[in-house]
């Protein structure tokens, strides 16, 4: 039936990323040797990226339910109810491997892919965030990668027309060979008009929409499921090219035909393109799918079935339409200048049949393609526990204000203005809190509701103690939403790890997931969508475990959101939460003392909840005039950020007796916030917090143009600001590293 097809050899199987036992599984499943096209389809469906074969077992343990969850993991994106008939649709996804090879295009298609996931479900995207991890600044590729990735993230979002409102950018030598580009998109939809992937009805037309299919991105998902080596540069052809203009048209056309009631099911073509989308629609609907590749719009002639099935050309969708609405839908797509082609239909056979040039190129059982993918229970070991570092055993290399000025100009703590000023963060006119705060706040339509959005993780904590690090990532997202006055609702997790075939990496994965689960449960903050990216390794050296947590919260009234900037002079500065002076794994210990060492700060989830609920209450009651959560860099860095943002100084008491001063100023104990209150409210607030058992102490007063510490001298806020803003632009201009 088929001519000129390559012979299936063990080498060909191996080059598809399939292990011998996995190939045997294919033989057992279909009872014959697969065709070349079928082998390609299996490799696309059974790679790590699409099948979650190493992670599935452990992902099942995540808490995914709450009364406000409309759709948990398993669809294109998660969906939560925010009341008034409105739903928020969101997800975060990685585009790590492509971004290292081709930073601009890798980043653009990462943003494009996640936006598509969101509007596929019927939501109009209203905000994007991202988490970027780069190698050491001194690594020869780092500057080039930062420049390309940031331009790419901006290039796509700016043109598509969605504000990029927040994120993280970090540097660490462990990302030298594998950067991380995690993109999150958030959309808004009517709660009763969410669209899903499951096809229904036999003989329904399957329609191909969007851009034409080319040879780009073939085996992209397979590449993303393998380690890098010195020849990775040669994988450039597997990176796709993004076209935000086409995506903007696709968005408008999709929302228009959805509004007209034309759509039964819809699935975007992301990883593994046509293969994955067609199989998912059929399998989820318990139906078969017949595809006729002669109908697929192609960008170039002579494409084989194999190439069409594995292409990852961007800005494409597959839909099952209501047959009576086909003409109406086609007219809408033509108006937007997009391709529209009926490429197949649903069948009752539960087979996935692909025809090309009159030949049957593939005929496979559709449900087994997904359900029977290998599932591994990979061995894992817990890493050695690192000792707790006692502050009294750490000598202070310099005075606290000198250390502060240095810390503000370090790669991880410095201002990321250079990054976010390349992102349009004001388009749509709903950005209430721009980048640079604890969480971004966007107005929902005409208000008064708002959303609080953040992305968080502290990879060095996860490396030192995966369980505590996993907890901390969730707790920090929850805290950042709380610090702007939001009620945390749900998260999306983007789990970036090394090679799962190594037990110590699998141990990190399992440990982080346990920590995430514990925190989600305790904080009532379920996981509704996510993505796993494994094999972030080069020549056997893995990244820091990096489970990025994207959090979404709601504000009943966005005008009640708090910001971190000091507002007026003469207000009391309160520290809420307990401070023991935890220096292990702190930025201070690493960047000032030169030790990346020790156990990370433990996270007490009950304390997190208690302290956070109190702070949120103060914001809603109007007693808190500025709020900031304490994270990397600890107390003094947080104070400096508040002063810089408000252009107002502060006078601070000396470190309390019994605490080593630098541990007080720079320790990274969790569950803490800084809050300013007017003097007239001070007594009331202190009394109230003490009554509910929340630790609180006044540590100073706002005012002046300097940050002054009793007995330690002072530093001008404008000098702190200059230090804060200096490092990244200088570095990118080719200076300091």
């Amino acid at each position, binding site marked *: 039936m088929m001519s000129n097809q390559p012979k299936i050899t063990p080498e060909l199987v191996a080059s598809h990323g399939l292990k011998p036992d996995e190939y045997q599984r294919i033989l057992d499943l279909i009872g014959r040797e697969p065709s070349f096209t079928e082998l390609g389809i299996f490799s696309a469906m059974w790679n790590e990226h699409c099948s979650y074969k190493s992670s599935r077992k452990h992902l099942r343990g995540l808490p995914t339910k709450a009364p406000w969850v409309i759709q948990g993991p398993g669809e294109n994106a998660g969906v939560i109810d925010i009341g008034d008939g409105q739903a928020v649709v969101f997800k975060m996804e990685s585009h790590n491997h492509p971004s290292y090879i081709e930073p601009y295009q890798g980043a653009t298609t990462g943003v494009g892919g996640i936006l598509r996931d969101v509007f596929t479900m019927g939501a109009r995207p209203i905000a994007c965030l991202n988490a970027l991890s780069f190698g050491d600044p001194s690594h020869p590729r780092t500057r080039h990668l930062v420049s390309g990735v940031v331009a790419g993230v901006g290039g796509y979002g*700016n043109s598509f027309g969605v504000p990029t409102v927040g994120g993280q950018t970090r540097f660490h030598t462990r990302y030298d060979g594998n950067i991380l580009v995690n993109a999150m998109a958030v959309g808004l939809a009517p709660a009763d008009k969410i669209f899903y992937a499951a096809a229904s009805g036999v003989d329904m037309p399957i329609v191909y929409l969007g851009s034409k299919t080319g040879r780009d991105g073939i085996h992209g998902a397979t590449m993303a499921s393998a380690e890098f080596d010195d020849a990775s540069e040669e994988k450039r052809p597997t990176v796709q090219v993004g076209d935000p*203009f086409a995506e*903007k*048209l696709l968005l408008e056309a999709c929302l228009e035909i959805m509004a007209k009631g034309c759509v039964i099911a819809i699935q975007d073509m992301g990883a593994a393109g046509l293969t994955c989308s067609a199989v998912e629609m059929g399998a989820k609907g318990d139906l078969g799918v017949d595809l006729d590749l002669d109908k697929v719009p192609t960008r170039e002639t002579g494409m084989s079935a194999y190439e069409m099935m594995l292409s990852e050309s961007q800005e494409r969708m597959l839909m099952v339409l209501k047959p009576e609405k086909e003409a109406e839908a086609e007219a809408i797509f033509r108006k937007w*200048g997009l391709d529209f082609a009926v490429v197949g239909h649903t069948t009752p056979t539960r087979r996935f049949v692909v025809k090309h040039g009159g030949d049957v190129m593939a005929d496979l059982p559709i449900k087994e393609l997904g359900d029977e993918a290998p599932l591994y229970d990979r061995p894992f070991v817990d890493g050695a526990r690192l000792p707790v570092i006692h502050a009294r055993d750490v000598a202070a290399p310099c005075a606290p204000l000198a250390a502060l000025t240095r810390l503000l100009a370090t790669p991880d703590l410095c201002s990321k203005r250079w990054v976010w000023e390349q992102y349009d963060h*004001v*388009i749509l006119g709903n950005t209430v809190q721009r980048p640079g705060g604890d969480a971004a706040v966007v107005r929902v339509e005409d208000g008064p509701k708002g959303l609080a959005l953040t992305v968080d993780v502290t990879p060095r904590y996860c490396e030192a103690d995966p369980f505590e690090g996993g907890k901390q990532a969730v707790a920090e997202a929850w805290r950042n939403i709380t610090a702007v006055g939001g009620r945390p609702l749900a998260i999306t997790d983007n789990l970036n790890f090394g090679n799962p075939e190594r037990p110590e990496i699998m141990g990190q994965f399992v440990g982080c997931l346990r920590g995430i689960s514990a925190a989600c449960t305790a904080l009532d903050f379920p996981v509704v969508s996510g993505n796993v990216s494994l094999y972030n390794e080069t020549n056997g050296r893995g990244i820091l475990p990096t489970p990025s947590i994207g959090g979404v919260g709601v504000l009943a009234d966005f005008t009640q959101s708090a910001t971190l900037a000091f507002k007026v002079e003469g207000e009391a500065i309160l520290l809420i939460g307990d401070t023991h002076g935890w220096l292990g794994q702190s930025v201070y210990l690493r960047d000032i003392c030169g030790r990346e060492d020790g156990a990370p700060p433990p996270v007490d989830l009950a304390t997190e909840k208690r302290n956070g609920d109190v702070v949120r209450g103060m914001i809603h009651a109007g007693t808190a005039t500025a709020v900031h959560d304490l994270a990397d860099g600890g107390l003094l860095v947080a104070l400096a950020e508040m002063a810089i943002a408000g252009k107002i100084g502060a006078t601070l008491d000396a470190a309390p007796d019994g605490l080593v001063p630098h541990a007080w100023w720079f320790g990274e104990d969790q569950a803490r916030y800084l809050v300013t209150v007017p003097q007239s409210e001070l007594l009331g607030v202190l009394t109230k917090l003490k009554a509910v058992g929340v630790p609180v102490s006044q540590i100073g007063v706002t005012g002046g143009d300097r940050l002054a510490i009793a007995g330690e001298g002072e530093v001008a806020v404008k000098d702190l600001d200059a230090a804060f803003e200096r490092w990244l632009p200088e570095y990118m201009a080719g200076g300091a590293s």
Partner: protein
Amino acid sequence: MKSAILVFPGINRERDMARALKLVSGQEPAMVWHAETELPAGTDLVVVPGGFSYGDYLRCGAIAARAPVMDAVRAFAARGGLVLGVCNGFQILCESGLLPGVLMRNAGLKFICRDVHIRVERSDTPFTAGYNAGQVIRVPVAHGEGNYEADDETLKRIEGDGRVLYRYCAADGVVDAASNINGAAASIAGLLNEAGNVLGMMPHPENHVETIMGCTDGRGLFAGLVAHLDRAA
């Protein structure tokens, strides 16, 4: 005020503009598709909004400038109708010949999104009637190609005619190199045509019209247009 907002494929600030116009004028603007050959009857103001028309894959604004609706806009402008182009709209107006000059890649070669200060050079035009001459307003920019250039003779004529309505400046109104964010000739942020009825500008007044946006300095531009048209009516 009856306003019409042009919609080209790839335009993405049409909703922001519609919302601002509605907020200030009280009237919902008409959205006009690029393939139309006529403007709605009774249109007082045509707005070409921001975005990336046709992806800006050719020169910014070059394809949109040749869309069918632009013939109607040129005719409307020739009759003295008011036309406002913002960001990509400014680029489209230059490409369509309604304004002189061209917008080049930002001098720093990067996309810039931030609040900038611009100085209102005169208040006796429909596009600046809501401000005082010399007033400094704060509005956001969001563009990669906003570096205005024209030949020396054109620039001399523009300046001689007083057609620069908005100029990038420091917070205190001083026009200097440091505040010229994209390297534009003579720090030009907003430029009027010879007849005085077509304005192109890079900053986005429509994104600073409500308190939640952090600033309401952009309202004056729309309020001035409303007042001007009310007087004319």
